[in-house]
């Protein structure tokens, strides 16, 4: 049971860690100042949430690992994030499409966790919901603005959606870890979140004049750790560089 809980908390924390790192790659190079600041702030929220999730994961595991050790001393096969969040940024449109697809799931998931039987999880979710509500609001506005924008921006957003949509399915597929969380009243069954997500997606995409791909094929293997895409390893060489070169270095 505590193994499943540890896995589950790593999934939550690795999602926010990997996406937080990905969007921090935009810091200083985003298309306009406001977007640069917004992406950096979103990254900051996600990294803050990571400290809470991975901190709790370390406590549950009981082997003396803290959030930093989990973030910087694990290699790619130990990461439990969704494949979606490790995908490279691409252009600004693709970054915002990835954010929108993730935020919609993230907010629904966190709202479900607010009534978790585990008080610490419920408290982290309660805190995070407020932040993620802003993330989703902004990502939605941007997807609509760029999708229903110029010919060029529309094309880029459609390309981004076509490319990222095969990674949406993984967010809603329940496995043994999810089943264990459901039976202990810790977390919602992810498959139950899909209908509302689809309705939200359809409404936003219609307003953004974008077409949802008809093929529902889903890449899997991120949250189970079975098979990450090649991109995560490359990202970790950047993110973990300092701790790999100088193990246990501190400020």
């Amino acid at each position, binding site marked *: 049971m505590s193994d499943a809980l540890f896995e589950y908390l790593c999934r939550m924390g690795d999602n926010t860690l990997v996406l937080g790192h990905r969007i921090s790659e935009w810091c200083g190079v985003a298309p306009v100042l406001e977007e640069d600041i917004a992406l950096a702030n979103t990254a900051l929220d996600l990294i803050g949430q990571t*400290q809470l999730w991975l901190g709790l994961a370390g406590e549950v595991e009981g082997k003396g690992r803290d959030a930093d050790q989990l973030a910087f001393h694990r290699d790619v096969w130990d990461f439990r994030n969704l494949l979606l969040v490790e995908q490279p940024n691409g252009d600004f449109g693709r970054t915002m499409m990835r954010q929108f697809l993730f935020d919609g799931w993230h907010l629904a998931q966190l709202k479900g966790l607010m009534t978790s039987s585990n008080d610490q999880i419920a408290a982290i979710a309660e*805190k995070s919901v407020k932040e993620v509500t802003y993330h989703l609001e902004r990502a939605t506005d941007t997807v609509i603005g760029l999708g229903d924008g110029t010919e060029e921006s529309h094309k880029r957003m459609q390309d981004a959606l076509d490319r990222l949509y095969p990674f949406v399915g993984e967010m809603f597929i329940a496995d043994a870890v999810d089943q264990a969380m459901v039976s202990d009243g810790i977390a919602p069954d992810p498959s139950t979140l899909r209908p509302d997500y689809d309705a939200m997606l359809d409404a936003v995409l219609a307003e953004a004049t974008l077409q949802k791909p008809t093929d529902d094929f889903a890449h899997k293997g991120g949250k189970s750790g079975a098979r990450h895409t090649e991109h995560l390893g490359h990202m970790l060489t950047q993110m973990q560089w300092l701790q790999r070169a100088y193990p246990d270095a501190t400020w």
Partner: protein
Amino acid sequence: MVTEKPSLETVWSWLSAVPDPEIPVISLTDLGIIRDVQWRGDTLEVTVTPTYSGCPATRIINLDIETALRAKGIEKLSLKRQLSPAWTTDWLTDTGKARLEEYGIAPPQPAGGPQHCPRCKSTQVEKISQFGSTPCKAQWRCQSCLEPFDYFKCI
């Protein structure tokens, strides 16, 4: 040696003199992040809730609380982090809100946007971005005096 413990009221008044590190016109008690102060035996326990989970000021705030209380002679001190109930801008005091506005930051409004431009008081304002120079703020612009300004987000 017998030392008298300062009353909780006195401790609260000390804390109300500690400024927020990012927005120094308001104090930590104005911000509403000090949730509780208690004596546990001879240890003073201060319960603090973060504004945003990734706010880098959180660590500085803890350090500032510790420094301020140590300077008043508190030797045994414990800082407790509390996540729930999550911080809300409803906990900003009226004094805090007034000071924010004087400083040029529009205070949070339940309607979700600033009431008026903190400089010229025009109600013709528009949102530039949901995010601003710190996690707790958004960027807005006044359409009358054309000045951009920070809005303290309502959460």
